[in-house]
């Protein structure tokens, strides 16, 4: 192994150990949770404003599309469940 690589690897470990202890600490995870919650609430506020503007122009907002996608996913899940139930009933009938 060349000397430069040895030095890089040694430096990486020297710095890395400190970085790892920082990003594995409780304050770091508190910060991550805080950022996630703030991000979600900020996104919610921005989406609320843009939704009102888009609705004024009778246009669908991202949240509308998301809701439709959720409803579609729920419906699709229900359809899949029903088709599985039918398949099982048919299988049981064939067994009899």
């Amino acid at each position, binding site marked *: *192994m*060349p000397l430069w*690589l040895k030095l*890089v*690897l040694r430096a*990486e*470990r020297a*710095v*890395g150990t400190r*970085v*790892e202890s920082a*990003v*594995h*600490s*409780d304050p770091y*995870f*508190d910060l*991550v*949770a805080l950022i*996630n*919650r703030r991000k979600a609430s900020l996104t919610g506020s921005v989406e609320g404003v843009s939704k009102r503007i888009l609705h004024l122009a009778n246009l669908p907002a991202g949240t509308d599309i*998301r809701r439709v*996608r*959720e409803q*579609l*996913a729920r419906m*699709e*899940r229900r359809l*899949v469940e029903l088709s599985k139930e039918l398949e099982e009933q048919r299988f049981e009938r064939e067994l009899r």
Partner: protein
Amino acid sequence: MRAVSPGSPTDLLARVNRDMERSLLRARNGVRYVRGTNRPKLGVTPKDVVWQRDKAQLWRYRGGPRRFEQPLVIVTSLVSRSYILDLMPTSSSVEFLRDYGFDVFMIDWGIPDELEAANRFETYVDEYLPRAIDAVIRETGAKEVTLVGYCLGGVLAFLYANGHQDAPIRNLVLLATPVNYREMGPMVAALVEGRLDADDLIDATGNVPADVLYSGFYMMAPTTVVAQNATLLENLWNDEFVKGFQAVSQWTRDQVPFPGAAFRQMVDDLIRRNVLMEGSWRLGGRAIDFTTTGATVLNVMASADRVVPRAAAAPAGELVGRPDRREEMVVKGGHATFGTGRSAFKHTLPRLADWIGSHSDSGHETKGKRWKSDSSSSLTATP
């Protein structure tokens, strides 16, 4: 051939020549790497889809000598892509096991979207796995299978094996399977302590997005990327090294969303209550006792695993299976040692294959070349 002394002009010339050649190769491979061309194709061992339900698929790998009666069924994790076990030709665990003589199957869960957001552990343990194993039995005519679960796939595998009295399992092999979530590292600890909640990580699709999972793994050792890239720079002249590096980097970045309902269950029961350490879990309306399976259980841990540390995987050896049918194996390497790296093909897989082979019935050889283990546990072809 004339011996060359280390400091002789001939030696110096040879070294200059070698360095020049390597510099040219480095430049060529560097351009290819930056442009993203010449990327290896991953997961290409020939296979057929023999069963499918929703996005879950059961693959059967073609070819191989098929020396053993019990097919080998691999249950992959819900977190990462299954091709880590079939990375590239000549560097594929699946290919290795197939060429050793196993009829290899793999269950791939696909890439979840909104439709899978409601999937719970029961969906995998009571719906997909029993049907997939039935399909293996139908396809091969075998009476029993060897079930190999990798990472969280190991948890699914042992829940299925113990939750279904009629599960036709001869051997149950758990690879880096997390059981004790108190030992799973800082991110999991943050979930235990309530610093992070499941809902902090689940997005509008109802799943934990892939980039959250990637960040979680990345933040375990964020600076190692520097060491990895420095090592790549040094070995950039070596086509095989670059190919392997690209393959593993792609797999590391290529995470899949985690179904939201299963994730909430994991946080509430597995992580916060650490329920697997109790030796049973109430799932699908009944308590699954982990000692009911008649299978011989092999718990395999990687010595330098940072994703599922040895302390998190070790209790499986005391909790899963009947006390007289438990065995343990520690292999060198990290979490990916079951699919990649020199040690995987030199030590890990030969030891694993030898163990499974010695716990399977020899069938008649169907086709292809025969393999045998030599004393150093590496595989050699015999005519």
